[in-house]
């Protein structure tokens, strides 16, 4: 099979590790070989967090090689841009528009670029960029905490992950606590529909 390399980037607390685990679990259900890299401990505390999901027979290393991501799932614009090292002109970038200001921006020591500026810079690496209103849809689904699942829905719609959608949903059922399942399923559907519509008329 073709190898699939995914980079998920965002801010600690956005549900990045769970998103990666859902995709990894779906891959195992599909009978595929997979590696999911995570970062725990100090780095997680509101800092930049990156997780990689790699699927393929020959995959051994936990991390994606520079310039070799098939898709980048950006949970936050600045962190999406910070991970363009992994992009090539073939990479699909799905980027949430939810801006989270780093501490230096609040005290005025640094400036956060505008969303348009971030999109422009990301397009310098790949033209294949879709902005996803993940936070809005998560709230619509019932909780801001489901923004990660909205993004997974959007990724599933792009059809790049070598895993059947029913396996992604099965993984979701397994990993999300029962009382939050309904909102998460809704979040997935919203993200999926959104990306499909954007594909139809970009």
């Amino acid at each position, binding site marked *: 099979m073709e190898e699939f390399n995914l980079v998920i980037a965002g801010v600690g607390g956005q549900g990045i590790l769970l998103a990666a685990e859902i995709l990894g679990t779906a891959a195992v259900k599909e009978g595929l070989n997979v590696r999911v890299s995570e970062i725990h401990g100090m780095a997680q505390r509101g800092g930049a967090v990156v997780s990689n999901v790699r699927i393929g027979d020959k995959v*051994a290393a936990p991390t994606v090689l520079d310039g070799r991501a098939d898709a980048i799932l950006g949970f936050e614009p600045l962190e999406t841009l910070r991970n363009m090292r992994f992009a090539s002109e073939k990479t699909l970038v799905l980027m949430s528009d939810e801006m989270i200001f780093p501490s230096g921006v609040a005290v005025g020591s640094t400036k956060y670029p505008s969303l348009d500026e971030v999109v422009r810079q990301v397009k310098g690496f790949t033209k294949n960029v879709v902005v996803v209103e993940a936070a809005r849809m998560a709230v619509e689904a019932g909780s801001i905490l489901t923004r990660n699942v909205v993004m997974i829905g959007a990724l599933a719609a792009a059809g790049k992950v070598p895993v059947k959608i029913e396996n992604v949903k099965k993984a979701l059922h397994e990993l999300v606590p029962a009382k939050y399942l309904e909102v998460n399923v809704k979040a997935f559907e919203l993200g999926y529909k959104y990306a499909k519509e954007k594909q139809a008329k970009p």
Partner: protein
Amino acid sequence: MPDLRILLQDNPGKRVLLLGNEAVARGILEAGIGVVTTYPGTPASEIGDSISAIASEAGLYMEYSTNEIVAVEVAAGAANCGVRALTAMKHVGLNVAADAVMTLAYIGVKGGYVIVNADDPQCYSSQNEQDNRFYTLLSNLPCLEPSNAQEAKDMVTSAVEISEELELPVLLRTTTRVSHTRGPVTYGKLAKPRSKGKFVRDVKRMVMVPANARLMHEALLRKVEKAKEISEASPHNKVTHKGKSGGYGVISSSSAYNYAVEAVDFLGLDVSVLKLGMTHPFPEKIVGEFLRNHEKIVVVEELEPFLEMQVKAVAKDYAPNVKIYGKMNRLYFPRKGELSTRLVITGLAEITDKKLPINFRELDERYDETVKDLPPRPPVLCAGCPHRASFYVIKKVTGGKAIYSTDIGCYALGIAPPLSIGDLLICMGASVSTAQGISKVTGVDTVSVVGDSTFFHAAIPGLVNAVYNNHKITLVVLDNLTTAMTGQQPHPGTGVTGMRTPSRKVLIEKVAEGCGVKYVRVVDPFRTKEASAVLNEALQQPGPSVVVFRAPCALMIARERRRKGIRTVPCKITDECTSCMACVKLLGCPALVVRDEKVGVDEALCTACGLCVSVCPYNAIRCGEDVKGD
């Protein structure tokens, strides 16, 4: 996180996605281990946490010990009664445990005993990136190095078998990328744990007075000879890729092996790869044969040239003319930080004189140009973190003019502006004792900051020293009622054990009083006026003083609220706000955001701790139902 009870399923052949550390936990169940001890530390924490979640159901005993040496000693006691045992810790934990480990190697064990040790190349969550494989040379203990989750599970059983055959503890050394990578794991059979054993007196073997220690050292060296045979025959040491030409041979282990095989594939090199899963004792004959069959050898390993050194020693006897590349004569691979597929590709391309298929330099230039002005995003104290209140109080009372020694935990993040508390940090417990040296020679006020779990782990001897030698220091214990950084494990002050049963709380203030400290106070740091008055008084004491700032971890409160279905009403900025930015500049709370030069509240982050209410000079912040503060 999956329900950890999936680890308990008795269905050999089932394939599941597990984190390296969860795979070790499954290995514990398959190996029939009856006693598991640990002190939490990234990247090893989830081993103990997974076992804690299922221990009573699995029928084994698990404890969070006070620190790593205690953990090893408890397990060593059990293992010497014939029970299989395992201790998990991060790399620097082995420094703490080394005193016990070095001599336990002489005594040995009766039940299989495994010490899981997780190194942290790149210092993702550590104060150093020491290469603990050197402990195997120092202690003579055998060492296994898994490269992925499947091996992490399987090697627990191998380690127990080797340990029982040799009657010697075995190290299972992982790294961050093994411990914190998820991969498919195929289950083996579960074994019933035996958690009851029998102590058989054997003074010559077990009481290490000099006369006995000399004999047992000899016994250890005999075991090492036997261990060599095991290593030479180990299925974990094997040629995984056979080259055609016999030109280049690659030797690798652990996480580095993964990068090595992908780099070889990427460059399309015709090489053989020797994977070492048992790296101590070094399998001389296997390596020697491999050297004889190749003209050039590349050693790919993370951190120190531990394998390379031994490859060179073997080469002298087996293949003196073979060329060896790694990091000793020239740095083809870095000796610091973690490796990556890219670093190995680059090193291998240079050694083999291959052209790189990707122009990394061009990629770097474009990337560096894009990110050079991006605002950095370092980790920060969470919104609602009680440490923020404590640091605010410390800074206000001392005017930022004291010297602040700090310690290992979330509160190390206090060094970031605007709080900027933390002038010296070495290791667990060092805040208390380094402050004493500083105070002695400078006469400047010294405030040492230590967390609750760290206090129990290593600060108590330092505190006794302060009383005994009458050092004028103020010890501030940031008691957030949990081991926060590593994932909210219980500790002696919490009244809960690793078996999830209630226990007697050890109170920090009582311990301090018991150590002989005359001035000991407990105060909620969110009550900033009261906390400031107490700290001020503490600083006036002629000798050591202890202030316990006690308020629960914000993540714990959030979880509790979610469980009870309580909705947090975030703070509100009212029209009285003059945009003076005092709250933003004094606290650096991530829930306070500035847009268009106006302060706002990030409602998703705000926990309504109320700290900003107490610092606002214009009384322009309102806090909802959960108001704290003066």
